[in-house]
């Protein structure tokens, strides 16, 4: 009598080789390279030497500037994630409940900004938010303001741009995570005497929390690592960890410092992931 389950561990290992190779090449190797780079010494101007030093990490943890950058990154990412959640949640809920043949089309519409590069979208925002942009022109035309409001080249512009760039990811992850939500549960709550608001607070919201945690985690990480939007919409005023990595790597040429900041960011991501995993389990109860 043969066991009907394949009992060939060797085969399983062989089959997972491509995946192991892909992860090693695509993630592990670059991270190891980054880790090694972060302990190379540098000389003024960004001259790179091969060797060993902890200088970059000492600078990272002693210069209060990096603490400020980290705080600014966390703040900006949390704000943009929250904004994306507030905008994306109703959209996702609407799409999730939609029983129409247009549903697929509308879902595609919600995620189609992903088809346009972030650079192009950022320039689009400049056109909308700039001093001579649509919003300021409209407000001026309506006589509400006489000087343009600064909506871009500052934190407001970056928050708006980041929120918009996160929105498709938020909507998609919320949609994917709303699986436990059954229309019948809301109807049951209604028949039991719950008003629409209480139904939302007691049934819809708690049941969608796993989706909220999932979407927020993904968006938070994307926001922390985003540098194109802050650069294009920040007017040089919005200094974040990601833009600092970009500047150290591609302007001031201090690769080891850029690598050290990237490693710190990686550590931050691990913390966020673990925290999110815990939270996920708690809200899924």
């Amino acid at each position, binding site marked *: 009598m043969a066991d009907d389950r394949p009992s060939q561990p060797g085969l399983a290992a062989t089959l997972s080789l491509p995946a192991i190779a892909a992860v090693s090449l695509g993630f592990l*190797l670059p991270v190891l390279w980054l880790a090694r780079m972060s302990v190379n010494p540098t000389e003024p*101007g960004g001259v*790179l030497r091969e060797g060993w030093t902890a200088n970059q990490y000492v600078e990272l943890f002693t210069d209060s500037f990096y603490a400020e950058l980290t705080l600014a990154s966390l703040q900006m990412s949390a704000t943009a994630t929250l904004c994306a959640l507030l905008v994306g949640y109703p959209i996702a809920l609407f799409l999730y409940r939609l029983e129409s043949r247009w549903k697929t089309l509308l879902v595609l519409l919600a995620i189609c900004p992903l088809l346009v590069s972030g650079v192009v979208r950022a320039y689009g925002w*400049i056109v909308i938010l700039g001093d001579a942009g649509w919003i300021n022109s409209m407000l001026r035309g309506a006589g509400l303001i006489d000087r343009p409001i600064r909506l871009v080249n500052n934190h407001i512009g970056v928050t708006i741009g980041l929120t918009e760039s996160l929105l498709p990811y938020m909507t998609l992850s919320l949609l994917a995570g709303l699986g436990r939500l059954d229309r019948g549960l809301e109807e049951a709550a209604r028949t039991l005497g719950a008003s629409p608001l209480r139904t939302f607070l007691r049934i819809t919201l708690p049941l969608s929390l796993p989706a909220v945690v999932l979407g927020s985690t993904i968006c938070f990480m994307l926001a922390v690592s985003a540098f194109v939007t802050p650069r294009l919409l920040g007017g040089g005023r919005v200094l974040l960890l990601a833009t600092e990595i970009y500047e150290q790597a591609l*302007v*001031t040429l201090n690769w080891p410092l850029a690598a050290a900041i990237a490693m710190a960011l990686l550590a931050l991501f691990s913390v966020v992931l673990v925290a999110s995993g815990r939270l996920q389990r708690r809200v899924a109860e």
Partner: protein
Amino acid sequence: MLVRAAFALLALLASTSIARAQSGEITVMAYAGIFQDKYTEAVIKPFMAKFPAVKVNYFSSGNSAQMLGTLRTQRSSPQVDVAILDVSVSNVGNKEGIFAKLDPAKVPSLKELHPMAIVPDGFGPAVTFDHWVLVYDTEKVKPAPTGLADLWDPRLKGQIGLSAMPNIQGIAATVLASKLAGEDFKTSIDGAIKRLKDLGPSVQTFDPQPDGYTLILGNTLTVASGWNARAQLYHDDSKGRLGVVFPKEGSVFQINTINHVAGSKNAEAATAFIEYALGREAQKRFTETMFYAPTNAKAEISPAAINRTAASAENMAKMIPLDWDWVTTIRDSWNNRWRREVIAGR
């Protein structure tokens, strides 16, 4: 070990994008965009006409630091023979051994170069001089600004694009602001930082994207900092709407050097190209095409072109000499002061 291995791997990957330098073939790496168009037209094509046996490939890159990054990854097997990039970055390459020294016997034009063009220890010299300018919208800013000092005019509030540090335009702006404050930037930039901090709220953007010229012509800004060569091209393209001002406080050179990559596969052709690029003929043609000042003092430039560069005697006298090697030692501290005091406004 690991770094070496990673470099080798990355080089392997990068090599697919660059045509392998064959005999009679060299690859020149320099800026993308309009620089590529003009340099190909003014220097590379005439060179190939003169040396029909050598084929020159142009490998374009976004900025100097990216070029150095590419060269770092190709260390074990360089795919680029000649690189044109900013002197602050080429200095790093010289110290890292990425670039080779030139043989004065094979590059006779070295003797004709302007003293400021010479890089110590026989490394690649300056091939272009550019300088920091103010650009403005001639339709909106009247009277025309004459220098950095005019940026504090309240009428310009919110309409200024000023490239901040670590961009090297920010270094030039610091130097000029120091001069305005009557201090020696080599000892203190306190006065400069104080003045720039006052200017901060008037600045629309400290990082004009894609650049100040475009933002002025797109009605987002009315005045911005810039580099002369590109500004002159935008001046012509906009039929004079974009005005270019050589600041009355003076200006600072942005220097591009031409460098021979160490381990280049075709050293002979590469050296021949460098000699040609530094020669009077190429220097004259590129200046007249793109308004970079010539580094070859003997190049005979048409008066019309020379007046639009820093090379005129009058402008040359106003240039503030800046030792870029020294700049690398103070760049981080200047950068921090910009970030904490000028940009953050504290």
